């Protein structure tokens, strides 16, 4: 590959459109938000930039800190579930016959064909008190009751009435929604790593006497680590900032920091505070990425030692 110095015109022709796009629509707005975070609200639509730290200090209000903390937890749990569910899926796809692979990958990304808003509303229809999950459970409940009736045990075991489960408007529903929406972001990088894995490494492990489970944990998981890390990042970061899923599926006690930021910009009309919160969220994300980079480099250094 030729160095970009040899063909500067070609290099700039390829780089400029994307660079300008990012500059105009990403870096400039981000810069504006950064500046707004140092502003003071003086009227309904007027904000003076006074370089005050008040907004950042306000973010450290215990209520908001609690929300940040909960957001990190919800995102962490959702990411773990996505990893545990996504790894077997990715493994299965990578071991599928070549003819079937594209179809399976299509199925993995099929949910993207529908808007996230519609998909999330669909989850409500599935999870609500009179939703499909509860209908299914009620059907099973009726079957069980009919089975126990001849023994006279129906009321003792099954109760008098079917009690629908409360599946919606709580943290569980939010985590469920996040896993559902972001699972493909976990499966795809995992698949990309596993598909490149040299099959003879797995055969060698079996050959040396390891069983399938041992091979999975000793060979597949360590070698899939780059994919696992990418998947975690791709799920964790959007999960940390999500507001739509928690807005639709969450209850009053499952607000995430994303919802609060959204409110500052809309209902509360407090752009400076919203901006400061956005940047704190950004810094948290950076800190987590830096932590991971540090862990990786330390591990590499130890391996070289």
């Amino acid at each position, binding site marked *: 590959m030729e160095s970009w110095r040899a063909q500067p015109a070609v290099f700039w022709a390829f780089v400029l459109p994307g660079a300008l796009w990012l500059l105009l629509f990403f870096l400039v707005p981000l810069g504006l938000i950064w500046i707004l975070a140092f502003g003071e609200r003086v009227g309904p639509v007027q904000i003076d930039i006074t370089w005050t730290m008040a907004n950042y200090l306000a973010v450290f209000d215990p209520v908001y800190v609690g929300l940040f903390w909960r957001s990190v937890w919800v995102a962490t749990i959702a990411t773990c579930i996505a990893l545990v569910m996504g790894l077997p899926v990715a493994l299965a796809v990578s071991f599928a016959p070549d003819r079937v692979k594209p179809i399976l990958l299509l199925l993995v990304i099929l949910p993207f064909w529908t808007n996230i808003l519609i998909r999330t509303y669909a989850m409500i229809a599935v999870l609500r008190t009179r939703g499909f999950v509860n209908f299914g459970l009620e059907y099973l409940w009726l079957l069980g009751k009919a089975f126990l009736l001849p023994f006279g045990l129906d009321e003792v075991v099954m109760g008098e009435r079917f009690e629908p489960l409360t599946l919606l408007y709580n943290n569980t529903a939010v985590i469920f929604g996040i896993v559902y929406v972001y699972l493909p972001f976990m499966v795809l990088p995992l698949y990309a790593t596993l598909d490149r894995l*040299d099959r*003879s*490494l797995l*055969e*060698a*492990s*079996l*050959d*040396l*006497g*390891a*069983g399938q489970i*041992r091979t999975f944990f*000793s*060979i597949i998981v*360590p*070698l899939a680590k780059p994919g696992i890390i990418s998947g975690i990042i791709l799920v964790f970061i959007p999960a940390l900032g999500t507001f739509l899923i928690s807005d639709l599926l969450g209850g009053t006690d499952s607000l995430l920091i994303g919802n609060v930021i959204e409110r500052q910009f809309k209902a509360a009309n407090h752009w400076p505070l919203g901006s400061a919160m956005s940047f704190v969220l950004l810094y948290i994300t950076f800190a987590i990425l830096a932590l991971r980079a540090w862990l990786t480099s330390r591990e590499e250094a130890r*391996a070289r030692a």
Partner: protein
Amino acid sequence: MRDVAAPIVEIQNVTKAYGKLKAVDDVSLAIPRNAFFALLGPSGCGKTTLLRMLGGFEHTSTGRILIDGEDMAGIQPNRRPVNMVFQSYAVFPHMTVADNIAYGLKVTGVKRAAIASRVEEAIAMVRLDGMAARKPDQLSGGQRQRVALARALVKRPKLLLLDEPLSALDKKLREEMQLELVRLQTEVGITFIIVTHDQEEALGMASEIAVMKEGRILQIAPPRELYEHPTRRFVAEFIGASNSFPCEVLAIDGQNARVRSPLLGELTVERSAPDVTSGTLIIRPEKVRMDFSTPEPTPGEALIRGTIDQIAYFGDLSIVYLTAEDGSRLQCSRYNVSRIAAPDPRPGTACTLGIHPEDLLLVGD
């Protein structure tokens, strides 16, 4: 204690079919204990499939495989008394040399103290001293191969399978590893089965060679017999080079046959096998005598006149390609035994070739 004379591997009428294609077609084979056995053949002849069936990575469609008298049907690779050196070596990239070698012992529950000493022993055996803590990406191809060997041998298998183990190494290293493999085999006394498409590799290492073509075994013999006594034309042409002459069989007399060849006249030659009653006469290029002076046949020798087309000089020997008077193409190799000998003749030079009937062999087509 089992009968030491009994073969370590018995392959009985094994077939492997992929749809209509038969990768391995009704192969029967017995491999003696402590052998260095080579499966040799062109790519796609089924040799790797056969090896992978021994390792348990492919199922037999029909037939039985016995290892040390035990039927291997339905036994998973991790439960077989067999270890494999893979073509890509398959050294675990996330483990050190020592961890790679220890892996097979750890997963089968060998005690820690025993693992340490056995790993150390294995490292010394493959001459990787001082490399125990290295990761595979800090090793050369040859060193990675040694790790793969140590990792398999440390398990003390009844059988070591090697799938084209030298194909990824350069020529010098390949020759070194050939000697090394033979040394290891003698040292550990484990039966080695090696798959290769390189005839020199097979001849140089194996105690016995099976030549395969299109899923079938054509001949099983020690190297010398395979080279000097091939039973089929394919074997003769696959192992080393050979000149062939079409011929007509006039009479059969025990081991010999009376044949007539348009180029060589009437001769009595040896038959390669009892079932060979027609076929082709072959002779190895180094057994053809080349003469530039007036031909004076030694008794019983057949003479051919020809013209030199091309000469390939390899240093130790030169291969002369010729066209005979009837237009057939022949080759003749000459060792450059003296530093001050006359140089090779130029293309276009006329010459005479002398062939002794005892160097000819009648092989089946």
